[in-house]
């Protein structure tokens, strides 16, 4: 009989685990537990059961979403690394690459807004620099309940401060993102963070534990009992009011992460030949990073847990393996070059500790106080049984799209004024003002534009980036809504003059075991995929957040699309604001009466209803290409896509931060100024370029008006005109969020 190490004295025995079904608390099902017993030909001990529970959680294994993710198109001439790594990588020429990924931190942020959001930023940055890339920008995509609710205000303030607190301190600019409000997110706010990095292709790293005998190096913060079982925690529904979830919160240390980031990049650049694999410790920290690296290489791994740097005393193997302490990295390093790599970290005041080795037997083995406390197959641990998911179309989706909401238009000027104050449309400047958007001195287009634009020093190039969510549309029609999210992201990129080159995503959904929710997931991804193919923007990374439910009520199906574009000549970038009086205003595409799912429907009825009209993906692409060509030939001097609030809001926004107004005439009912039709851009052209521009666009764009010196926005329609003072509506637009936060 071996002696049980002291810290493990109170753990239930394998028999007790079986009898009391302890694993159920960790979201492992009885069927899964039985499979593990069969595979091992014995009962797993406490540590092993914990390893499986974490690794087989949806958060780590994607077991439920995999059938959908597998359908994503992720290959084209630019793709150097698709899904399956810390982040995806795209070739941008000159031996450089752009690296990006998005990640959700919804559940942690709901419980602990500041730290949840902060560690979300920290986590996604580690994904980027684990690839060997220098992070250059962060974007955040947020969804909250209605702003008139006190809980929402608390969440908004905490989450914004958390993103700022981490991103500003580590010195990576937060350049963009978006924020929306809908009651559906009341108990389940969404915090999706995207990070973008720049890589010299020669430095590219992957998470692979290759080379028998190579050493496993632990770098960064010490391990404490933070967020034990955070991974499984993120994969279960919320019961409002359950306090025990609260222990799962981690605290971030951006100062330490900056040291870890700089040293990791330095080690990779200067000792790339010694480093075999790099992975950050994220969800289910040590076990997930080490097991995945071994599985990727088809090797085994032996870890000596006594060597793991520990912040607290008496930690058990279970706690050490599942802790989600932040700011930690795992490196696999050639056995004879450990010292040179470790030195880079030591010079930065960090410790790099050799905690184990790569083995040839495919086993995942942990030793603790001289005993083997876990011994399982790597491959079995990292590959949960395939799941067959059921799907059924929700009833609401059978409605006829020809039934569109009929807006009330008693005073269209007032409607426009009010729409601009809606929380989802109003300026978010008072919120993103807390983010350092300029550090690193590359930000050409700051938050507030259609997409952010970050130049690449030493080249004439720039990267455009944006995140977009179309939750209302995906709710009304998952497939069309998914496609619209990609189309809108691409329009935002195009409006700056950049060509869209790739996508990352965050799939925020409810409980996947509900066949209707699985249907929504599947169809939204189909829509995303179809549009991505047409636009030649492969999906190279992403993240899934399921179980976004409170008391059994799921959020809208909400895929977030993050997109990156490439601009060859940064001097040719365009922005949304009008540039000169008398410039000609063109509309690319034609407005249709699309009112279901609009901000107008929401404002006038308080809800979202009906089905969506489909749209032609090839026309979408043509319009984007036209705008790109116009910008490239320097015929277009401002560009803005039409999104929430429709053409009226788009035109209003183009007057903001300028001294100009506009005169526009359309031969349609005034309500159509608020229709949210796809594939539309508004662009301006100098009068002297009129002929050239019209030759370029043919009948795909129409002259609709003129920029004026008079600060008045006049929008003429068949039945009624809109006529508002642009300074007044701008004031409402700028002040609405502050006002709502303070009342």
């Amino acid at each position, binding site marked *: 009989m071996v002696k049980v190490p002291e810290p493990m004295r109170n753990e239930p025995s394998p028999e007790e685990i079986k009898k009391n079904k302890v694993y159920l608390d960790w979201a492992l099902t009885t069927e899964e537990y039985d499979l593990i017993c069969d595979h091992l030909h014995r009962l797993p001990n406490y540590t092993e059961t914990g390893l499986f529970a974490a690794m087989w959680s949806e958060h780590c294994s994607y077991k439920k979403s995999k059938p959908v993710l597998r359908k994503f198109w992720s290959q084209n001439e630019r793709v150097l690394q698709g899904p399956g790594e810390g982040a995806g990588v795209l070739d941008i020429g000159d031996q450089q690459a752009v690296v990006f990924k998005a990640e959700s931190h919804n559940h942690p942020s709901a419980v*602990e807004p500041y*730290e949840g959001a902060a560690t979300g930023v920290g986590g996604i940055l580690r994904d980027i620099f684990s690839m060997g890339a220098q992070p250059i920008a962060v974007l955040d995509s947020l969804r909250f309940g209605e702003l008139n609710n006190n809980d929402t205000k608390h969440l908004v303030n905490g989450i914004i401060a958390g993103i700022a607190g981490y991103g500003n301190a580590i010195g990576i600019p937060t350049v963009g993102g978006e924020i929306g409000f809908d009651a559906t997110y009341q108990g389940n706010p969404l915090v999706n963070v995207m990070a973008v990095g720049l890589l010299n292709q020669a430095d590219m790293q992957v998470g692979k534990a290759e080379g028998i005998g190579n050493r496993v190096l632990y770098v960064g*913060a010490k391990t404490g*009992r933070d967020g034990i079982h955070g991974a499984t925690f993120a994969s279960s529904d919320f019961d409002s009011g359950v306090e025990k979830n*609260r222990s799962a*919160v981690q*605290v971030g*240390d951006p100062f330490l992460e900056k040291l870890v980031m700089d040293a990791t990049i330095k080690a990779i650049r200067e000792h790339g030949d010694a480093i075999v694999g790099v992975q950050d410790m994220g969800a289910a920290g040590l076990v997930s990073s080490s097991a995945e690296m071994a599985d990727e290489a088809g090797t085994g791994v032996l870890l000596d847990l006594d060597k793991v740097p520990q912040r*607290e005393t008496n930690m058990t193997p279970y706690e050490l393996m599942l802790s989600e302490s*932040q700011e930690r990295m795992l490196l696999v390093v050639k056995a004879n070059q450990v010292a040179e790599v470790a030195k880079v970290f030591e010079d930065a005041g960090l410790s790099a500790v050799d905690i184990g080795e790569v083995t040839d037997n495919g086993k995942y083995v942990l030793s603790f106080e001289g005993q083997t406390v876990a011994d399982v197959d790597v491959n079995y641990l990292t590959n949960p049984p395939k799941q067959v998911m059921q799907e059924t179309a929700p009833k609401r989706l059978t409605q006829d799209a020809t039934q569109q909401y009929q807006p009330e238009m008693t005073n269209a000027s007032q409607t426009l004024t009010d729409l601009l104050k809606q929380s989802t449309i109003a300026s978010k400047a008072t919120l993103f003002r807390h983010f350092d958007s300029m550090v690193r001195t590359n930000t050409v287009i700051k938050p507030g534009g259609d997409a952010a634009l970050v130049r690449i020093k030493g080249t004439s190039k720039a990267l455009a980036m944006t995140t977009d969510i179309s939750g209302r549309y995906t709710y009304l029609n998952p497939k069309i809504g998914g496609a619209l999210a990609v189309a809108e992201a691409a329009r935002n990129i195009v409006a700056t003059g950049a060509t869209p080159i790739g996508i990352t995503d965050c799939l925020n959904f409810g409980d996947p075991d509900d066949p209707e929710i699985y249907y929504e997931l599947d169809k939204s991804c189909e829509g995303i995929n179809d549009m991505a193919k047409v636009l030649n923007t492969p999906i190279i990374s992403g993240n899934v957040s399921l179980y976004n439910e409170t008391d059994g009520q799921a959020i809208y199906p909400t895929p977030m699309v993050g997109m990156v574009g490439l601009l060859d000549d940064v001097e040719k970038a365009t922005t949304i604001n009008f540039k000169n009086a008398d410039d000609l205003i063109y509309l690319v595409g034609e407005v249709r009466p699309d009112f279901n799912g609009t901000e107008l429907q929401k404002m006038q009825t308080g809800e979202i209803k009906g089905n969506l009209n489909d749209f032609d993906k090839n026309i979408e692409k043509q319009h984007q290409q036209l705008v790109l060509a116009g910008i490239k030939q320097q015929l277009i001097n401002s560009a803005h896509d039409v999104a929430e609030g429709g053409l009226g809001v788009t035109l209003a926004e183009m007057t903001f931060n300028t001294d100009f107004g506009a005169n526009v005439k359309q031969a349609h009912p005034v309500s159509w100024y608020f229709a949210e039709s796809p594939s539309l851009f508004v662009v301006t052209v100098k009068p002297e370029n009129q002929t050239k521009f019209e030759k370029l666009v043919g009948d795909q764009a129409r002259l609709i008006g003129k920029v004026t010196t008079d600060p008045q926005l006049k929008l003429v329609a068949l039945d009624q005109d809109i006529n508002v003072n642009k300074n007044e509506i701008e004031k409402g637009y700028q002040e609405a969020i502050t006002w709502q936060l303070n009342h």
Partner: protein
Amino acid sequence: MYFGRVYVSYKKSVLDPQGEVIKSGLTHMGFEKIESVKQGKYFEIKFAATDMENAKQELVKMIEALLINANTETYRYDLKELGD
């Protein structure tokens, strides 16, 4: 008038990055015998209440409602009545 002093510190297993950095700062400055430093918050609140019992209740309510983050922090307090 009552005067409450509230001392808030991180729960034991919660990381205190500030404390760590201050500790290493002090160590570098030559204070070598430091075992640990924890940074917390300190509040001084002056408020009116009907009596000591009521003051105590109010103070605890304030602390738990706003001053601490129950996820990560614990607190102590002391309370006294101020002369006019």
